[in-house]
């Protein structure tokens, strides 16, 4: 028996030696790592833009230099292959950070552009997806982020920081996949703008593109996106500067920071029609009061601030709801999805006509705000007269 084992091991090793170096063997240095991928146009021909990195040096002196290449082609993947030819190295997708689409692509329907990313073995599901606003993908990739080596890394860093900088909701391909597939929810994509910063164009992520089906129907700006974040229960630590009335001293701009928010959306059936109840509880920290003579040890003042905050957010939520319900008719909060989950019987009834019901879906709104932190001091700086 044992001799047979040895023979078998030898055969195994022999076969592997004979087969070594075949088929899928690649050398890592012959790969061109694609960091970012973008589609500027889908019809009549795809315009595919890749941001690749050129590595050089080696050892302690490794250097990374972004290169942006673009081509027009019949599809995203063939564009990528064509660009391998231009680059002289094999385009290697799995390290891509971001996927960008221009507004035009988004308006015409993102499916054509996204399909490859969703299917591909190569591109990972964790790629961030963006829509560019007022600029093309190529311009974004060619802009100069101040710190990061490449635009893609810059965008990746921003997306990871989302909960600290607010103003957008980052989205990865797999989430987009799900949102596109599910009933009763409209996907939203973060948008990229270019801003001037000391003579250089710098990409920033701010605002949201609202999709219905796979077509874009409108924009939300940064502030609206903040509110959307709150409603979607995405945790973020946004700063809000709100003119607050302090007793009889008049109104002062006070800066609040959200330190916690819980949202509870309940689908309801009222008088045979769908409705929704949104209950939002937020905790705030007071960051900066400026000249406002406010003392948070004074319960009355605190209560008044909390009430004003609640009203403020209620108004802004109403505005947002109006925009998405009436202007876009896009269920960005996934209320339909919630209906399907919590009230399957009702959904069986309304589901097919959700588009009809959604624009004038009555929403009960309850907002509770609490001030829980005021920095290290309860009262403002006092200046001696």
């Amino acid at each position, binding site marked *: 028996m044992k001799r047979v084992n040895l023979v078998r091991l030898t055969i195994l090793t022999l076969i592997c030696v004979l087969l070594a170096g075949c088929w899928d063997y690649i050398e890592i240095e012959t790969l061109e790592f694609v960091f970012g991928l973008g589609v500027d146009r889908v019809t009549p021909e795809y315009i595919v833009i890749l941001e690749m990195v050129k590595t050089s040096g080696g050892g302690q002196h490794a250097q990374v230099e972004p290169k942006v290449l673009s081509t027009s082609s019949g599809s995203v993947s063939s564009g990528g292959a064509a660009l391998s030819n231009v680059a002289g190295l094999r385009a290697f997708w799995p390290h891509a950070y971001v996927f960008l689409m221009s507004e035009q692509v988004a308006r015409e329907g993102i499916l054509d552009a996204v399909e490859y990313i969703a299917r591909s073995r190569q591109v990972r599901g964790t790629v961030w997806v963006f829509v560019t606003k007022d600029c093309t993908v190529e311009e974004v990739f060619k802009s100069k982020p101040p710190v990061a080596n490449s635009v893609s890394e810059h965008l990746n860093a921003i997306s990871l920081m989302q909960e600290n900088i607010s103003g957008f909701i980052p989205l990865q391909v*797999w989430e987009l996949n799900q949102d596109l597939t599910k009933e009763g929810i409209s996907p939203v994509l973060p948008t990229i703008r270019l801003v001037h910063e000391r003579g250089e164009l710098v990409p920033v992520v701010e605002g949201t593109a609202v999709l219905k089906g796979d077509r874009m129907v409108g924009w939300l700006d940064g502030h609206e996106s903040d509110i959307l974040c709150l409603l979607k229960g995405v945790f973020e630590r946004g700063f809000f500067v709100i003119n607050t009335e302090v007793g009889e001293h008049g109104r002062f701009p006070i800066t609040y920071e959200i330190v916690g928010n819980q949202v509870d959306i309940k689908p309801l059936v009222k008088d045979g029609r769908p409705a929704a109840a949104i209950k939002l509880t937020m905790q705030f920290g007071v960051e900066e009061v400026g000249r406002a003579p406010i003392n948070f040890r004074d319960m009355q003042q605190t209560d008044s601030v909390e009430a004003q905050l609640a009203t403020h957010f209620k108004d802004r939520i109403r505005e947002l709801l109006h925009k998405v319900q009436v202007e876009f008719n896009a269920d960005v909060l996934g209320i339909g999805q919630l209906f*399907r989950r*919590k009230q399957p019987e009702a959904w069986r009834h309304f589901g097919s006509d959700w588009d009809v019901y959604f624009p004038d879906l009555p929403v009960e709104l309850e907002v509770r705000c609490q001030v829980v932190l005021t920095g290290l001091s309860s009262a403002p700086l006092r200046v001696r007269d």
Partner: protein
Amino acid sequence: MKELVPDHQGMILVLMFIVGNTLVFPLGGLAGPDIWLAFLTATVLALPIILAMARVRSLMQGSTFFVGFERVLGKWPSRILAFLYGGFAWRLACYVVSDVSNFIQTVALPTTPPVVIATFLALLMLWAAKEGVEVLARFAVMVGKVVLAVLAIIFVLLLSQVDLGEFQPVLYNGFKPVLRGAFQILDFPFLETVVLFWVFDCFGRRVSPYKVFLPGFLAASLVLLIMVSTSLAVVGADRYALYYYPVWTAVGRINVSTFLTRLEAIVGVTFAIGSFVKMAVALLAASRCFAYAFGFSDYRFVVTPLAMGVIAGSRWFITTVLEVDQSAVETHSPDEIMFQVVIPLVVWAFAELKAKNGKANGSSQAGGGEEV
């Protein structure tokens, strides 16, 4: 030669056999969000057959498998049955090998011919089958600990991505899809356990078959339920059945502070190792059955030709990943029902009858069971 497997090792062997190559497939995809119900249903439905198998083995206690089997069914019926099950087990080995080779081709090595991978696997399982069930059980325990640990880690890491809402609404389309999903799961992998029936040579005690089959099966069912539900809750109920390998896809999303990412390979590796246990067991069963059908008690000499046949067979039954999906998820072929449900129950009935007769005759002709 008697090959005796300790109970706990046998249990792990059963567990690994069921979990091993099932892990990555969209099991019970037809049930949609009610997958957990489908799993529970399938477990309940499979239990009688598992119990029947254990019962038959328990009745045969004291003799090696084929001797006991012959005593129950008679010489020629048991040989014919062994031949048929040999074919069934061999086909199962082919299926598992092509599952693995197609998986590897799809996720990692697109241009490597799957037959090369099949050859590697065939060589390894040939060796494993020749070593026998004792060694395989030890191997299964070694590997099982690793596989279960990996699954536990993956489970914990996936928890943050789980959306429990994916399981709602419960029974939106009624109980029919649940039943369909349950039948999928029964067919693959639960009732494939019948192959294991032919593998154990003998057991230590009369209760051993129960101690091996029952906890092994229940643990496997639990592990699969957890893994499958988790991956469904991560990738989404609507998309779950559309992926070839939902667990793989789900694990690709793990991202713990940008450090613990890109863990899919772990799933792939676990899958390959786990599947190996299954294919080796299937080959072992096939060899034992064929050797017995030809009238030999030592099975080792038929292992090599059968393993070489598996290399070819893996390209015969299933050639591309599309068919893997079909076979794993959709087909309810009648021969599977025959082999997995009907025959085991019939054998059980015969065994019970024989046991009763044996008891009745036992007083008059002591130990005359051999002749009857």
